[in-house]
Structures are given as structure tokens and as C-alpha cells.
């Protein structure tokens, strides 16, 4: 008798989880009805795309995504954000799980083989973050005798190793927070990745005054909005929205609001190059 109860419970749980996963998969269809739009963003990058503890979304990418969605005809409450980690962005787009992705998504040829881009809407550069009292690191050559930290697998880490400072003692960790902890405790001397992300971390309340950006331009990272390959209609609509955003001043406002607190000197808005 007891066994029977257990098996009933198991069946109940299994069918429940099936029902739940069926709900989860429905996101993309809603987008097609013109009811809701699902947008992929990063959840873990302060200043660019961050899900705060009370469930709100902030950051420059989020502001751009909201503006574009508005121009596409979706009001604020019709937007649904979905986490798009770097390794999953292309699949989320080509499976139709998201309408587009705006998440520090650098335009490059390998990615263009899988998805189309609109934009670029922002030109970021690889930069260095050091302790506020650091004076010995002013150019990239200084790194060769220093301990450097970045995130496992990131383009920035590979750039350092292959081109910028091959002799630097590079440590690659799972997340930027681990690197920041090391920087604070002086087990590393500098943290490198896109300046936008560094600025976001430096501007966080608990980090204010502890770190500074060196302000180098070690690479060009044109951020684009990723969308389904061949969807020229959506691409030109998003491009039009981005152009409008730059013209009416909302672009500058979003930059100042999200990246201003860390003294990040952003490049002027880049020209739209990804056209059909």
C-alpha cells in the first residue's frame, strides 16, 4: 500500500514537471502573436545587463532592448527577458526561443555564420581594471611582469595570452567576482575584459572607490543585436530603431545613466554597418 502511494506521488511529480516544461517552451510562440516579445540579455553584468535581487533588470543593454522593443510596437509590460549566457546565444536565436539578443554580443564572422546582426549600437574596448592606488600599470607592456585575471574562455583572456602580453601571469577564473576578490586581496594586479563590464563592476556600491579603469583600447568590440539568420525585415526595423535612439538623445542618456558613475569614457555612437 505504501509503495503504491510513493509511485502515485512519482507519477504526479513527473506529469507536473512535464506540464511545467510545456509552459516554458511556449515563450517564442507568444512573440509571434504580437502579444509578447522575448529578448535575450545577460543577467550577471552590472552596467550592461543585470537581474537585481528584487527581480528587476538594469543596464545599458537592457535600455537598448527596451527602446528597440518599443519601436517594434511592444509596450513595456509585453517584454519578457530571458537569460542568454554567451555559449547559448546562437542556439536561443536559431531555435526561436528569443526574438533577439542584446547582451554584450560582439559582432564577428564566426557568429555571422549562425545568426544575423543589427547595429552595432555600441563600440566597447578591452581594458584593464586595477586597484585605485595602482600606479605601475599604465600601458599593456607593463602587464608582462604582473598577475592578470580574466574569465575562463573569454576572448579577452585569449587576446592577452596570444597577442597583448604573452608573458603576463594570467589566471582565468569562473567569474568576474572571483577576479575582483583577488584584485582586492592583491593576489592579482589587474583584471581585463571589455571596459563596459569593468565599469559596471567598479561602479557597484560595494566596490566604489576601490578600483579604477586604466582606459586602454586593447581591442574593438562592436556590440550588435543578434537575430535569426535571414530575417532582413526585423534587421532593418531594429536598425531604424537604433538610429532613432541615437538621434533623439536616448542613447546618450542610457550611456550616462549606466556607465557614467564609473567615469567610463564611451566612444560616440557607432554607425550602423550590419545591413542586409
Amino acid at each position, binding site marked *: 500500500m505504501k509503495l503504491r502511494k510513493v509511485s502515485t506521488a512519482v507519477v504526479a511529480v513527473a506529469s507536473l514537471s512535464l506540464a511545467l516544461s510545456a509552459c516554458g517552451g511556449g515563450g517564442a510562440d507568444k512573440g509571434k502573436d504580437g502579444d509578447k516579445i522575448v529578448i535575450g540579455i545577460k543577467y550577471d553584468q552590472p552596467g550592461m545587463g543585470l537581474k537585481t535581487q528584487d527581480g528587476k533588470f538594469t543596464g545599458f543593454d537592457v535600455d537598448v532592448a527596451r527602446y528597440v522593443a518599443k519601436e517594434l510596437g511592444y509596450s513595456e509590460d509585453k517584454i519578457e527577458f530571458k537569460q542568454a549566457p554567451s555559449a547559448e546565444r546562437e542556439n536561443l536565436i536559431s531555435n526561436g526561443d528569443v526574438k533577439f539578443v542584446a547582451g554584450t554580443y560582439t559582432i564577428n564572422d564566426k557568429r555571422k555564420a*549562425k545568426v544575423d546582426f543589427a547595429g552595432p549600437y555600441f563600440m566597447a574596448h578591452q581594458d584593464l581594471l586595477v586597484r585605485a592606488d595602482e600606479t605601475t600599470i599604465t600601458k599593456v607592456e607593463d602587464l608582462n611582469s604582473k598577475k592578470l585575471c580574466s574569465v575562463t574562455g573569454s576572448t579577452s583572456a*585569449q587576446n592577452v595570452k596570444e597577442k597583448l602580453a604573452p608573458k603576463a601571469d594570467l589566471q582565468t577564473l*569562473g567569474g568576474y567576482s572571483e577576479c575582483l*576578490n583577488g584584485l582586492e586581496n592583491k593576489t592579482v594586479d589587474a583584471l581585463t575584459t571589455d571596459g563596459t563590464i569593468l565599469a559596471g563592476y567598479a561602479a557597484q556600491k560595494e566596490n566604489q572607490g576601490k578600483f579604477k579603469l586604466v582606459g586602454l583600447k586593447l581591442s574593438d568590440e562592436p556590440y550588435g543585436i543578434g537575430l535569426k539568420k535571414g530575417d532582413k525585415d526585423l534587421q532593418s526595423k531594429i536598425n531604424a530603431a537604433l538610429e532613432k535612439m541615437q538621434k533623439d538623445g536616448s542613447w546618450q542618456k542610457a550611456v550616462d545613466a549606466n556607465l557614467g558613475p564609473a567615469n567610463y569614457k564611451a566612444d560616440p555612437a557607432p554607425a550602423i554597418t550590419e545591413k542586409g
Partner: protein
Amino acid sequence: MFDFLSSGRYDLLGAFWVTVQLTLYSAVGSLIWGTLLAGMRVSPVPLMRGFGTAYVNLVRNTPLTIIMVGSLLGLYQTLGFKLGADLSADIGFRLAVLAMVAYTGTFVCEALRSGINTVPVGQAEAARAMGLSFVQVLTLIVLPQAFRSVVAPLANVLIALTKNTTVASAIGVAEASFLMKNMVENETDALFAVFALIALGFIVLTLPTGLLLGWVSKRVAVKR
């Protein structure tokens, strides 16, 4: 599809060599630590028994990622233990081995303890009647038989250990999954090929381990 391999940018064998090294060092370390723990758990001293039980239950129920990242943040970054190395890569490797030994030792201990239970009580009693001390009973009579009966479960632990080494990429050890993360970042157009390649690499490592140790376990089993 696999043309990214010929670009010369990725050292696949080198990465798997690090995985193998990580596995071997951790395997030896956790075998020793696990045996010590098992000894403590069956010892007549209440304090040692208590420590062994508490340690095993605490550590084996903690996710490996937390132990791994905790050793980096706590031991290295905050307390400054470098484990005798200077380069970040070496420090990361040694920390990873330390974390793996601390974690896997608990599973070795429990496998071994089940082996100890297969040795008839009469043998330990007979040995004690002859005047052997606890350490002598354990090392001369009980453990040699216990080890022979737990080769198969220990092979399980070793295979799990091999795959658990991928967690070390979280603290920057350049093993196979670390390379995979680099490939995923660069080779967006061949994601499935990358995953398949790394998975194949691990099968090449673990399948022979399982077959070999399965054969060994049959050979050395105590016939009762």
C-alpha cells in the same frame, strides 16, 4: 566540421594531459586520505571516530564547485597560501588537487569501509587474540582483504574523479573543459563538434579505466 582542430590554435592533447595529471595526483592523494579516514572511522578512539564521521558527512555533502572555489577564495586569495608555487597556473593546479583529494577522499573512505565490513569479524578477533595491536590488525589482516573486495567501487570513484576534474576550470586550471570553453567562445559555428570532441576524449579516458579495473577486480577478489 572539425576543421577548427587543424588551425593549430588548440592544444587538445596538452589539455587532456593536464586532465590526466590532475586525475592521477588526485587519485593517489585521495586513496591515501581515504584510507586514513576509513582507519579513523573504524578505530577504537572515540575522538578519531567522531572526526572521521563528521568530516565525511560534511565534505561529501558539499558540492565540489563550492569546495574548489572556496579553496581559491579562502586559502589563496584571502589567507595567501600559495602551496609552494609562484605562477598562477601552478597555484591553481595544486589548489585543485587539494580540493579533489579533500572531496574524493570521503568516497574512497566509504567504499573502503564497506570493504572492511566484508572481512569476517572472526579474523579480527583471532588477530587480536594473538596480541596484534589495532594498527597491526588493520594493516596486516583487514585492509589487504578489504582492498581486494572494493576494486570495482573504487573504479567507480576513479571514473567520477576523472570527470570531476572539469570543475577545476572554474579556478583556471587549463584542462579539457577549460579548452572547451575557449573553443565555445571562438567556434560558434561548430558548437556540437566541440562538445562531441571533448565528450569523446573523456570516454577514451574512462572506458579503458573501467574495463581494466573491472578485470582486476575479478582477478583479485577474495574467494570465500
